[in-house]
């Protein structure tokens, strides 16, 4: 019996074991993410490093890399005064602004509307996400024919239903820009829709009900409870779309090739054209570096400002 006044440890203790230098199993997480890290380093880092490296050389196709002359920052200097680069950058920004604004708005709105189990919602959901499953090359092909001035369905139905004169959609700078924005929205709104929907459905129902009791209207509930609670999902979705705007080029390549003029030429497509049409690999790499810096800067800014992990909570 011990009563606090006597030392309770009167019996001898066994010899103590040394304190472990590392917690048992501290290597385990690294063992799991290690292989993935290696693959990512090879798959992601290598091209980035190569782009940096090549941007200091004047490397043309047909030339061995070893024979390409080192030109220092010449490629970057050239880029600064290259009005084509600034032009396609502006096209990219406009494209990104319109597509992302509309995709986010539409995707969130649709998710909010179809969140409740109403009749036919699941069918609609399935049909609606089909565009997501089509590869960009096929998307480009499909829409190129749909927008075709002579045989395209769009001219046909625009005329038959709305009495709109046939347009040479992909031959007019403004219409072509509209067309690629439209197609991007067609393909990627479902992406926003589906992840926002998943987020909404994972919301704890009692919290939403609490706001109903607190007197929030449908609209206030969305604005003050639901959207803030899926904020991290929205930020990630926005980030992924932003990165894609600077990355994707297949649809434009096939639908318009960037034309007419440079009206639909996005930065990534421009790089592609520089590299494989005009064969200036070194210069194209320098523009890639610009692209990487833009994407990296944007991502960092968004993650810092909107830190999607901050609101994580088990409440």
């Amino acid at each position, binding site marked *: 019996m011990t009563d606090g006044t006597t030392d309770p440890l009167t019996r001898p203790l066994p010899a103590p074991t040394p304190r472990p230098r590392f917690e048992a199993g501290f290597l385990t997480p690294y063992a799991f993410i290690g292989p993935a890290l290696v693959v990512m380093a090879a798959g992601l880092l290598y091209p980035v490093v190569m782009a940096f490296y090549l941007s200091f050389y004047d490397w043309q196709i047909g030339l061995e890399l070893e024979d390409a002359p080192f030109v220092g920052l010449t490629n970057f200097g050239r880029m600064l005064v290259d009005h084509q680069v600034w032009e396609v950058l502006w096209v990219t920004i406009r494209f990104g602004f319109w597509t992302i604004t509309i995709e986010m708005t539409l995707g969130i709105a649709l998710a909010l509307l179809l969140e409740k189990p109403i009749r036919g919602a699941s069918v609609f959901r399935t049909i609606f996400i089909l565009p997501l499953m089509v590869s960009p090359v096929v998307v480009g092909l499909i829409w190129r024919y749909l927008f075709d001035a002579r045989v395209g369905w769009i001219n046909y139905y625009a005329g038959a239903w709305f009495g709109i004169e046939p347009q040479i959609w992909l031959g007019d700078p403004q219409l072509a820009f509209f067309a690629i924005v439209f197609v991007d929205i067609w393909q990627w709104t479902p992406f926003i829709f589906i992840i926002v929907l998943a987020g909404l459905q994972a919301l*704890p129902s009692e*919290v939403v*009900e*609490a706001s*109903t*009791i607190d007197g*929030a209207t449908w609209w206030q509930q969305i604005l003050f409870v639901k959207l803030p609670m899926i904020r991290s999902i929205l930020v990630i979705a926005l980030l992924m779309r932003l990165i894609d705007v600077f990355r994707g080029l297949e649809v434009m390549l096939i639908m318009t090739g960037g034309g007419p003029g440079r009206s639909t030429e996005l930065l990534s497509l421009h790089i592609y054209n520089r590299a494989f049409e005009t064969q200036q690999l070194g210069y194209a790499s320098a523009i890639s570096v610009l692209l990487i810096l833009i994407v990296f800067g944007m991502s960092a800014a968004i993650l810092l400002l909107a830190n999607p992990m901050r609101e994580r909570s088990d409440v």
Partner: protein
Amino acid sequence: MSGVQLAHIRKSYGSVEVIPDLSLDIAEGEFVVLVGPSGCGKSTTLRMIAGLEKVSSGQIAIAGRDVTWTRPKERDIAMVFQSYALYPHMNVAENMSFALRLAGTPKAEVQDRVHRAADMLELTPYLDRKPKDLSGGQRQRVAMGRSIVRDAYVFLFDEPLSNLDAKLRASMRTELALLHQRLDRTMIYVTHDQIEAMTMADRIVIMDGGRIQQVGTPKAVYNDPVNTFVATFIGSPAMTLVPADLSEEGGRVVARGDGFALPLPDRLKAAARRAASRGVTLGLRPEHFAATPRGQDDAPVHLDVKVAEYIGSSQYLAARMGSHDITAAVEVGPEADRLTAGTYHFDTQRLYLFDRRTGDSLTRAG
């Protein structure tokens, strides 16, 4: 007419009828506890009062106004959920003031009410914290505070204490009782814990299978349960039920069974005579056993003690009486050693008598 009235409420989900027909009249300012086993329809009933669930048929009135088809915000209610349901992206002050801000309450008044509620619940140091940085008990108090600042006509609670540890739960029970005194509002409280029900309620509503079994004060449902369900549900440790046969012996009615012969008090004579032919179920509450005889109403029974649990001033016995497993709670003082088999004494004035077939009480005063 005021308070909360439920008239012939029916609720079914598709073909599943959860509540067949429920009527209940709750007076203004009353603290009513709905209690019953899991799945008996307590939450469903509460959610229908809140307007989170629509009734299949029937009528609900709050403060003398028909609210059967009105939305929650128009019912003048506040609700505390089992999961607390705090807004994770708002701090404590924002959580508590959300409803007021939505209602367009002047800023100064919002501040004032939040501070008063925080004061009452000892949450003032935490007003700037997010829910995830609070302990379970603190979150629970925030949920409480969120409903207090509303100053609603009815407060609804759905098992608000079930996620707390035993000690905290006991102190929150006291807090809630105090809160009810202070606010003087109608409160409807759902729990499956009969101790919570007994300690806090003005009236207890005992439900089973979507039906109300009994409505009454804690004293009434304890002393005068309508049937074996209520009798065994209320009281801790639970009442033991044993089958018995009645016979007349020298002017007294004696209930005999395997291992016991208990003379019935005069109060039960008439009821016993009416039921004698059908056979009865005897109800023995654990706390009515004693180690030594206390008076002429005590009858000796032999208990074969299997386990004696030392609680302090009393001991809980898991014992056999004849072939029946029974529980006894025997007050022997904190100095007593663990009790063993022997003769114990049961206060026959405290016997309960039920119809063996229907389980309905035969001893009810009414």
